[in-house]
């Protein structure tokens, strides 16, 4: 039986946000909370393989009780079990503290019911760090494939998985032993429209809530604000790049316009940067 775990995060829908021009902080009021899209695609892939191979999918998230709706959404999308790690003492965690907690929870789930694959989104759309997945893999001493775009094959008997990962130029095909941790791009799977029975089950589902002490005890020094060495020095919005010069091909004629544009590109150094000095 296949057992996958998917780590999910609730994030503000950043397609919809505003930044307070004075404080540089995100205006959270009235911004809908959604499941981090990369996580949702990773979950869809986990559920796809569960349906193919038989087995189950466990989702884990860390956050306040308002994250229950996101766990329910994961159940709607086909997860079987949801765990919310929720305790005031976890609040204020950076990626280091978060990966400590998630690694411990995943190790506990693995001890109860061995895992084959652990899915993360490649990053969260609010913090954009892409650090928690790798942080967890290191703590679990587990192989990791980042920027996964396709799970080609899972061999539960031979204990291997073949994954395609995206690099800047190529697609790499990687075979690694199970269990493996993947951080996923959106291409990994389409998010399906959930069947009605799954939606109904999700609406009635109450996730397990894990606290600092129960069912496993966390080291107070490694969680929450105390376990988070990251200090945000300043937040702000980057200045908008200035508009470039526009060349009107209709007035100048196409030939003149193109050579003028090329000339500009050459003088500013763009051309040699793009062509790599060739």
């Amino acid at each position, binding site marked *: 039986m296949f057992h996958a775990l998917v780590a999910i995060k609730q994030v503000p829908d950043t397609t919809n946000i505003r930044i307070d021009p004075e404080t540089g902080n995100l205006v959270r009021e009235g911004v809908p909370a959604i499941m981090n899209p990369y996580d949702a695609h990773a979950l869809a892939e986990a559920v796809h393989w569960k349906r193919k191979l038989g087995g189950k999918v466990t989702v884990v998230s860390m956050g306040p009780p308002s994250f229950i709706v996101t766990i329910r959404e994961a159940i709607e999308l086909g997860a079987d079990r949801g765990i919310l790690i929720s305790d005031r003492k976890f609040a204020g965690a950076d990626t280091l503290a978060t990966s400590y907690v998630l690694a411990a929870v995943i190790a506990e789930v693995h001890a109860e019911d061995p895992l084959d694959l652990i899915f993360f989104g490649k990053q969260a759309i609010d913090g954009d760090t892409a650090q928690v997945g790798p942080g967890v893999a290191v703590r679990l001493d587990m192989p990791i494939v980042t920027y996964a775009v396709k799970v080609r094959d899972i061999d539960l008997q031979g204990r291997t998985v073949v994954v395609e990962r995206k690099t800047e130029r190529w697609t790499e095909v990687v075979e690694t032993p199970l269990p493996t941790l993947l951080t996923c791009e959106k291409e990994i799977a389409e998010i399906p429209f959930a*069947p*009605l*029975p799954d939606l*109904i089950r999700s609406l009635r589902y109450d996730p397990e809530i894990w606290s600092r002490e129960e069912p496993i005890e966390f080291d107070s020094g490694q969680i929450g604000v105390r376990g988070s060495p990251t200090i945000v020095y300043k937040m702000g919005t980057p200045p908008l790049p200035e508009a470039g010069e526009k060349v009107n091909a209709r007035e100048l004629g196409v030939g003149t316009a193109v050579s003028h544009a090329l000339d500009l590109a050459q003088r500013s150094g763009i051309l040699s940067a793009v062509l790599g000095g060739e």
Partner: protein
Amino acid sequence: MNQHERIEFDVVVVGAGLAGSAAAMVMAREGLNVALVERGQKPGGKNYFGGAIYTHAIEEVLPDFMERNPPFERPVTEAGFWFLSQDGLMRATVQGGNLDRSPADAYTTLRASFDLWWAEQAQKEGAFLIPKTTVVDFIREADGQVIGVVTDRPQGEIYAPVVIICEGVNNLLAQKLGLIDRDLEPAHLALAFKQVISLSSETINTRFGLPDSEHGLAVSVLGDVSLGLPGMGFVYTNKTTLSVGLGVMLDTLAEYKLKPYEVLQRYLAHPAIAPLVAGGQLLEYGGHLIPEGGYRDMPRLFTGGAMVAGDAAAMVNALHWEGTNMAIIAGKRAAETALEAHSRGDFSERVMSRYEDRLKDGFILQDLKQYRNFARFLETHPEFMGTYPVFLNDALGNFFSAYGKPKRRLFREILGALTNRRSLPQAAGDIISMGRAVMGW
């Protein structure tokens, strides 16, 4: 849940709007297992209105509503008409009396928050809300008896011996059941569109002459609002926003190829409106259809195992801004009928017809029947939205101006301003037609 297990409820309510959540609330309170199916992400997500909501209807479904923190904006303490001429404004509003009591007769409201709260009250009574799911068809017996719905999701059938259809203005399901045999007509649909404009509550109080935020205004704006075409504007004061917009018949917009936002921009730039919204920040812009055909556009209200309520049944009295209250009360009447059907174990057309009997007993069908000619009256007498309001405005303006000429001449001029546009016999005829349309003669 087993994939082959049937999903069953005692009742399916289609649409968690005002009618649907009211129906769900009443039935769940009496112990029925109610599925409240909503196509939006959340209840209210698809809904939009002017607007203000009437408490008599809320109270009838939820007597202790004031203790449940309803997301009201302001009580309506001043209501009436504004008449615009090209650059003038004449106000005919009332305050005090029936408008000065607590809880108020009506409260200004934003639907996204109100409908969410309204559905939460249904959930608190035990109704089961199924969001993000659209009902697309029915499960029916060979004899046509409705025994459930089909949704757009895989394995999306929900079985129930009663379905209450509160799908809103676009009554595709009522059509699917054959309760109405024609599509909606653009001539009977108003497209209402508005802006929600943010201003401080102090600014709103000052601009509208309101003593504090516990006073609010709701007005219909007639006259020079929609490029001389039949249309009606509105202004509602919320706590820290204004809802300002107008409704124009859909066929008019189509015929003159008007873009709603252009009509709205012009309305907002009117010399009487612009200072009210000046300096405000635009928060929302949106629109919604209103079924204004009234009684003559109503579908058959029931069939075996199903009933229709709210906008889907064209329950709107355009002249009196009533619709939300009709939806709530009709939802309750449908719920009472479903409860009766369950207690009898009989879901036949005969028992469902008790829904219509209940509506005939109250204001909904009586009013809609009385106003059955009103939509047609406005269609044929656009001057009530344009010419007359402008005339009234000019006439009063002249009446209160000292021109240094004999009053007899002034009155003749005022009358002349009317007879230029409408002859006296025509005007007299218009007034009689109006009376007939309102009284239902």
